[in-house]
């Protein structure tokens, strides 16, 4: 079963635009929600993370919005750049396991 649902599967935006990736989870025991960024040929790397006691976290151009009642969270990339082109994974954990969404391939055109 898929515990974290991520959409869209792929996303194309123009340079300077806003990229938005959405995730939904089912397990209310999850209490940590990280986003990972993966470049081709590399392992995923932590980008930004949030806990459910806050509704938003911002780090530079990257913002996580969290809606606990809807069990949804999203990643917003402001002023998207070609260097942001990568695959993004949302994830969730509430025990010793870290479960991932299926990923979103982001392409930012110059």
């Amino acid at each position: 079963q898929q515990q974290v649902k991520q959409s869209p599967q792929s996303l194309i935006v123009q340079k300077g635009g806003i990229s938005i990736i959405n995730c939904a989870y089912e397990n209310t025991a999850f209490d940590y929600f990280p986003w990972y960024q993966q470049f081709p040929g590399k392992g995923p790397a932590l980008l930004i993370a949030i806990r459910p006691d806050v509704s938003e976290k911002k780090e530079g151009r990257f913002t996580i919005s969290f809606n606990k009642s809807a069990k949804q969270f999203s990643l917003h990339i402001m002023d998207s750049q070609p260097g942001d082109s990568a695959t993004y994974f949302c994830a969730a954990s509430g025990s010793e396991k870290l479960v991932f969404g299926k990923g979103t391939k982001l392409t930012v055109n110059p």
Partner: protein
Amino acid sequence: DAGITQSPRHKVTETGTPVTLRCHQTENHRYMYWYRQDPGHGLRLIHYSYGVKDTDKGEVSDGYSVSRSKTEDFLLTLESATSSQTSVYFCAISERYAATNTEAFFGQGTRLTVV
């Protein structure tokens, strides 16, 4: 970069043969994980370890076994490789369990092809 080394980085093997992938860390982190990455499926947890000789199953553990005899090494074994196990395998480590706001560090991956 976190000190994680996966070996081999690439391997081609025949159906029915056993295969062992190795993950070695120099960070002394307690938790170690094996994931597989497939197009359309993202990252799926195979097995994880929460200490020496302490392991548990993930969501896609059938056909795989693991062992951790030392803090620094976590081995993934495909007991009898099948074509469905062709994938990219990632090892990850974390200092504390994932629920405590702890970053997981990933290795570079092992591309395994079963022919």
